[in-house]
């Protein structure tokens, strides 16, 4: 996967992971892929719901050693 940019929100709690994701996404172009790293459990549901409601596509998310990784393609 061609990740355009990586955003580290580890250690941040709700709402910061989404606020930062949104800001980062605003600087990207349609089709770009943003990788988001997070440790907040709530981010899993919220990032997928946010992607849907804002027209982006959550391509994949996984958990590695307690870190959630999200790959979101800008719509």
């Amino acid at each position: 996967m061609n990740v355009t940019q990586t955003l580290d929100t580890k250690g941040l709690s709700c709402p910061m992971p989404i606020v930062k994701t949104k800001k980062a996404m605003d600087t990207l172009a349609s089709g770009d892929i943003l990788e988001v790293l997070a440790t907040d459990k709530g981010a899993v549901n919220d990032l997928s719901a946010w992607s849907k409601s804002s027209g982006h596509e959550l391509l994949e998310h996984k958990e590695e050693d307690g870190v959630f990784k999200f790959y979101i393609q800008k719509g």
Partner: protein
Amino acid sequence: MIKALSAKEVAKRVVEGSMFILDVRNEGDYKDWRIEGKGIKSINRPYFDLIDGVEDVLEHLPKEEVLVVCAKEGSSVMVAEMLDEAGVKDVYYLEGGMKSWSEYLMPVKLGDLKDGGSIYQFNRIGKGCLSYLVESNGEAAIIDSARTIEAYEDFAKENNLEIKHMIDTHLHADHISGGRKLAEKTGATYWLPPKDAEEVTFSFAELEEGNDITIGNTKIEIQPLYTPGHTIGSTSMIVDGQFLLSGDILFVDSIGRPDLAGKAEDWVSDLRDSLYNKYNNLSKDLVVLPAHFGKISELDEKGAVSAPLGELFEKNDGLNIKNEDEFRRAVTENLPPQPNAYQEIRQTNMGKIDPTNDEQREMEIGPNRCAITE
């Protein structure tokens, strides 16, 4: 300036006041489970749709007194500040979010016992779980304790009570019992119905018919009554000849579901026998005290949930299904979804797994769903 509102203060509004709530969790969470009440109005707008501004939601809000609610608090503070800046007066956020709401226990005195002593209901209003404390002459018994035992400990301390007995009417599938933990802490005896406890990893006293439990010198008898159906061991209790603690067998508005331990078909006839024969033979003056409520409208003006047994035999649909086949269908088909993580919760209550506090909290999130209808 935005202000924090504690779960306790919100509970007061739910029971006897009013409040407008802006719930900023995502749509699925809101639909599944939210703060409700007679005077409560709420709308849902996920916080991530409000990051750029709250203008769109303002027209749907009152000009003053809005409570912003989220899962853990963080997002509600952000949105509350935005509303405050936009000119809404008296903006509150729920302290600790729905996590705190789910855990708050509201003690309500139900009545006095004949030879002194009294009985309290601890209403876990955010989750619909009800537990009980019976006290007499400095001694207390707690029935169907919630996981968060601090509320009982504080209450016992304030009222100079020694907790002597922790009792679970059955092996719970919707919440983690605090019974064993508080028993270990206080030296109290932990009682469980033996038929529900075949796989447990700890020792316990057998809650069975004939093993009456006495509290205080004044003989407040707790008399167990074997009423299987929700689980195979489910045991009801009659306290002081006045109160029927019905566990998850009979609720005010509904009856228990027999499927949470995977045995719906097997236990239908037990459930029917418990309700239609054993309960039917008891005094109709007994006040039924269930382990759950289903709808917030079941709360009376004090916030308590109870009803005379005779009234339930007249009004509760679950007690008025004449035909056995129809009863079987009612309790096995079209059941609401099962409680969140109910298998893991049962394993925890058996002592087979030992999740961390945060994991336990996560497992309990959402409504209880122990009744056949919601």
